């Protein structure tokens, strides 16, 4: 079974959908068929967890859904638009408008403060004034409990705090979908719980779809849907 969630093309709750996606990685004899015709759809306000053993294709699928990689076959629809054949420019613009990312390593820009890190995606979008961007970023940082550390450089924050800044940054442009690849992989249990609770709460408040790739079954249990993957396919 490759489509664990009932498909409904006309359902306007669906923000991200992929259909029969195949992806090969590697070259020559080392070439591996990582995704073998995966289909999935994500609805607004829902939190999804993809679980499965290492190498089953979880992260590969997340990068494809995040338009950071191109499938060898199949189609990906973001906000109703087919994205696979779109150029790099269009896919980059779509990422800025619709997608937020949280990775295992926070990837904060260490030369910038927590506030500036959250503002960076907004500056690229260029729809808000400086003061509006600052207000919005402050709001997100307060939401993740860092309202008193706005001016701290990334290097002056703990691992858990840095990951919370990364979550605030993923929310910056009010995306339709947040894609999180092992967001707690580098955190202790306490911080992991904080991060997952934050993601689930904010997604419901903002009516966003959240897709979390994780090895941690306790974290997966907190999500609305658990998608189990094995050998490049979802199990039913």
């Amino acid at each position: 079974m490759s489509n664990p969630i009932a498909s409904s093309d006309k359902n306007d709750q669906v923000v991200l959908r992929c259909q029969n996606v195949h992806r090969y990685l590697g070259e020559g004899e080392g070439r591996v068929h990582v995704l073998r015709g995966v289909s999935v759809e994500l609805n607004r306000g829902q939190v999804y967890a993809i679980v499965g053993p290492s190498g089953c294709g979880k992260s590969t699928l997340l990068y494809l859904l995040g338009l950071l990689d191109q499938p060898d076959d199949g189609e990906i629809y973001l906000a109703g638009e087919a994205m696979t054949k779109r150029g790099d420019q269009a896919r980059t613009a779509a990422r800025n408008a619709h997608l937020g990312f949280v990775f295992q390593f926070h990837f904060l820009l260490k030369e910038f403060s927590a506030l500036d890190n959250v503002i960076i995606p907004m500056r690229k979008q260029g729809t808000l004034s400086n003061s509006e961007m600052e207000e919005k970023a402050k709001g997100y940082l307060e939401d993740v409990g860092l309202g008193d550390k706005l001016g701290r450089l990334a290097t002056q924050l703990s691992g858990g705090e840095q990951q919370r800044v990364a979550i605030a940054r993923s929310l910056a442009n009010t995306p339709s979908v947040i894609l999180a690849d092992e967001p707690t992989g580098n955190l202790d249990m306490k911080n992991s719980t904080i991060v997952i609770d934050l993601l689930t709460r904010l997604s419901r408040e903002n009516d966003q779809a959240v897709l979390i790739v994780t090895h941690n079954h306790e974290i997966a249990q907190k999500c609305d849907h658990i998608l189990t993957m094995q050998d490049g396919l979802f199990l039913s």
Partner: protein
Amino acid sequence: MSPNIRIALRFLTANKRAMAMSLAGIVFGVGFFIFGQAQTSGFEQFFVKTILGTDGAIRVQDRIRITFTTMELEDDDGSPWVIENTENFKHIEGIEQPLEVIEALKKFDSVTGISEVLTGSVVMGTNFRSYTGRLYGINIDDHIAVSDLENQIIFGDLYDFRSKPTGILIGSGLARLLQVTLGDTVVLTSLGLNSRYTVAGIFETGVSDIDRQRVYMKLTEARSVLQRPHGASFLQVNLVDPMRAKEEAFHMMNTIFYHVASWQERQKSWLDAFFVLRFSTALTVSTIILLAGLGMFNTLAMLVLEKTKEIAILRSMGYTRRDISSIFLWQGIFVLIAGTFLGWIVAILITYGVSKLPFRVTGIFSTDSFVVHWSIWHYLTATITATVIVMIASYIPARRAAQLEPGDVIRGTSQ
């Protein structure tokens, strides 16, 4: 401020030490480039000014006689045709009728003065020793109009020269060789005849070759010494704009049928030598900028390697490939702007300082200090050179940064 510039500035200030090294290279490269040009072109300008002040913008000499050669032939059908060879010229040395040529030259609007000159070799002797000099017979007032002789007098004055029929003006180098000073007597020997003359003035042009050989005398006296009662060796002509001497010379030659040599033509070998010197100085000093460019390349290439994760996350947030490359290019541009500006200041300080150093230059030229030439073109050339080198050095790592695939970087980091 655009987000790309903001990020570039932060990346730049986070790499202060490496960037400071590149910056220093550009500052000194640009500074020494400009100083090198100021110095070499300073001597070139000095030479040109001296040549114009001594030998004038244009020299009219040697009449041209066109010797047409024709050959009459018949075609197959018997119709006649003629081959004309119009490229045969004959040069007749000197100017036989100087007054006629002067009248013709006066019709050119660009001409500001004409001096009739008679030259020849003479042996100049004192009790101490003898040297061969080059005698120039001139009408002093005409010659002042086409030269800077009045200001080149370092001892004596033109009043003595005008008032004494046997007065001569002698070059400073020649005066040193003969060990004569004002009022001393010199015996001039030409064509077996000896005549005694008094040193009425000593001049210095600054060009050693001239100062070691030249002696001025009234034209009438020169005719007697050189035994040339008629004609002139050449006419020295001054122009409103000496820089247009080449074009004016061509125009005059086609009108009066005399060989007309511009100062650029007469001093071609020297001007070529100056050009080569200036070019080689620029090339040598450019290596400093080139090294700074390599430093810049190295710094930015390392930065791209260090920042692959940041580049990937920026790409995932919606920054385009062009944004990424512009972030790195802007860093190069900031270093370039700061380096060029500081380089200009260094150049101004060094050029000014060296021009004020009391340093006696002797040899081909004689000056009391280093001669420098201030020109905006030196600053522009240095800026263009630095811009080309730094932008190439920045473009390569910037392009590499833009080509990074965010998925590959993040996948690599997560494993």
